[in-house]
């Protein structure tokens, strides 16, 4: 039982990072029907910004918040830039064309980083001491708690933006019907840019948080988590914001249980197998309905 709860805690902490990345996938997919393959690499860029910020600017709790802000801002800019340069010319192209482009962008980001910073792993200097807490026999680390709390705050913020602001309303409108939205006087291009910025900012934050969790950053770190976050988005129902949160947490927990109770060698295979089962059995995802309600 203790092991079960311990695994659950670990799973939720890694799952909340997946959830943050999955939100970006789901928002972008909801609005322009593109699997943004490069999203995992934006998360990697976020982790690098966090790494440099801790190393050269400041540590401590203030340093952590600064790193978070820098990573979110930087990634939002990069996300918007990628959309403008690579995806915008292809807005009316076939989805496969757009997907191949997204893979190209992903490769580009990865190997530009390898070129400038080398492929080796770098150890992150932790901004604060990672205290360990015990409740009964279950151990928490401070970083786990910070990851979960930050994720919750960001998700609440996102829910507020999407549901209660004018821009959020525009996002929902564009994802429902871009042409009708344009006729209603919504600037579709701005809305899409904003969606990319929002999604990329969340991925950047996830990058900083994963840096705290594993203490390691490397240029190719975004590939596998990116894929898993995408699986999380599909799991919960792509295009649905609560679906991505739910999917991310589920994938995190499933992966941790798979590695804890079955074998860590098979954990990835189990996650991919799950993706295929979901796609085949319920392609709309667990929270997906036939009624289209997407952002």
């Amino acid at each position, binding site marked *: 039982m203790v092991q079960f709860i311990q695994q659950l805690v670990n799973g939720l902490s890694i799952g909340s990072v997946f959830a943050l990345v999955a939100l970006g996938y789901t928002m972008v997919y909801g609005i322009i029907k593109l*699997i943004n393959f490069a999203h995992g690499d934006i998360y990697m860029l976020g982790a690098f910004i966090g790494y440099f910020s801790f190393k050269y600017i400041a540590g401590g709790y203030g340093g952590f918040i600064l790193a978070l802000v820098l990573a979110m801002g930087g990634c939002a800019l990069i996300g918007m830039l990628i959309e403008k340069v*690579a995806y915008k*010319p*292809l807005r009316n*192209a*076939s*989805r*496969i*064309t*757009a*997907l*191949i*482009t997204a*893979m*190209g*962008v*992903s*490769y*580009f980001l*990865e*190997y*530009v980083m*390898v*070129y400038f910073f080398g*492929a080796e792993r770098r150890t992150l200097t932790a901004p604060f001491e990672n205290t360990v807490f015990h409740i009964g026999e279950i151990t928490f680390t401070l970083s786990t708690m910070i990851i979960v709390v930050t994720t919750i705050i960001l998700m609440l913020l996102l829910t507020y933006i999407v549901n209660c602001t004018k821009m959020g309303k525009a996002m929902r409108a564009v994802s429902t019907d871009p042409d009708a939205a344009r006729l209603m006087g919504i600037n579709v291009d701005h809305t899409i840019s904003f969606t990319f910025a929002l999604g990329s900012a969340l991925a950047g934050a996830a990058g900083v948080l994963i840096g705290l969790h594993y203490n390691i950053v490397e240029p190719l770190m975004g*590939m596998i988590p990116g*894929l898993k976050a*995408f*699986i999380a988005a*599909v799991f919960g129902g792509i295009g649905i914001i609560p679906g991505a949160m739910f999917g991310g947490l589920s994938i995190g927990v499933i992966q941790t249980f798979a590695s804890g109770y079955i074998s860590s*060698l*098979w954990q*990835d*295979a189990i996650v*991919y*197998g799950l*993706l*295929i089962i979901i*796609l*085949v059995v319920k*392609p709309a995802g667990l929270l997906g309905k036939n009624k289209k309600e997407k952002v």
Partner: protein
Amino acid sequence: MKQSFSRKNITALLILVVSVILLSVMFGLIPPKWQKTFITACYYIIGALGLNLIIGVSGQFSLGHAGFIAIGAYSVGIIFQSNATIYGFALGTALGIVITCAVALIIAIPTFRLRGDYLAIATLGFSEIIRIVIQNLDITGGASGLSYLSFEGINDQGMFIMMVITIMLAILLIVNYVKSSHGRATVSVREDEIAAEAMGINTTKYKTVAFLIGASLAAVAGAYFGPMNFFIKPGDFGFTKSIDVLVIVVLGGMGSLSGTVVGGIFIAVMNTFLQDYSEIRMILYALILVLVMILRPRGLFGNKEITDIWKKKTKGAE
């Protein structure tokens, strides 16, 4: 069958035989570094021809090519541990094709209900599962892989000739397939799946057939991979392997076989020049993908062939 020995076919056969001989003589004259390049090019072309059949002809987007290449490579690798002759190679290749077809069928049945990008992700997932299974089996040597896969009695030149013949057979197979009624049905699925279905075409069947042929060609490419590198490990068959092949298909043109051949040679030559700068190579791959997609979304050759230059433009020609 009457026409099998027509003058046209015999001439074509003669041209093929002469060109194989010419190519192999030329191969003997170039420096070893470039010999390696052309062997790599052949390997890329075989794999990319298969992927082109799946993407360009049937219009299904598969990211699972690495998995099938891995199956071919490991079948030959395991047979080679006891018998590294040409017979072992033939046996390994056949085994690889059989296993690949079985696996591809298992993949095709559930996933061909999906379309476009979902299909891509599902095939990617399957390919990763294949890799993880290989990594956890004993017979495949686990994560450390299989080594000493050198070919007994066949040198580089011999292998090059085998590969060129394989490419010619593969092109013959694909061209004949595309021109057959099955092939036309497959093309109609690419053009408009709903309309094809309305015309009474069993779309799932034709998608699956194209997928099986394409996957088998990937297995054949994989069969050459071991003897080419003397060593295989599960890490060789990650997601990047599928992208390598995809770049060639996209660059050459989806649906153009001659485009694939040109693309394969181009990528292999580029790799040789950039051998010591692997990051730049990957950045270039990325730029090729993005720029080709933005500027020429159907690839450099589109779905045209080099031979179209000599053809008269006829109305209704494809």
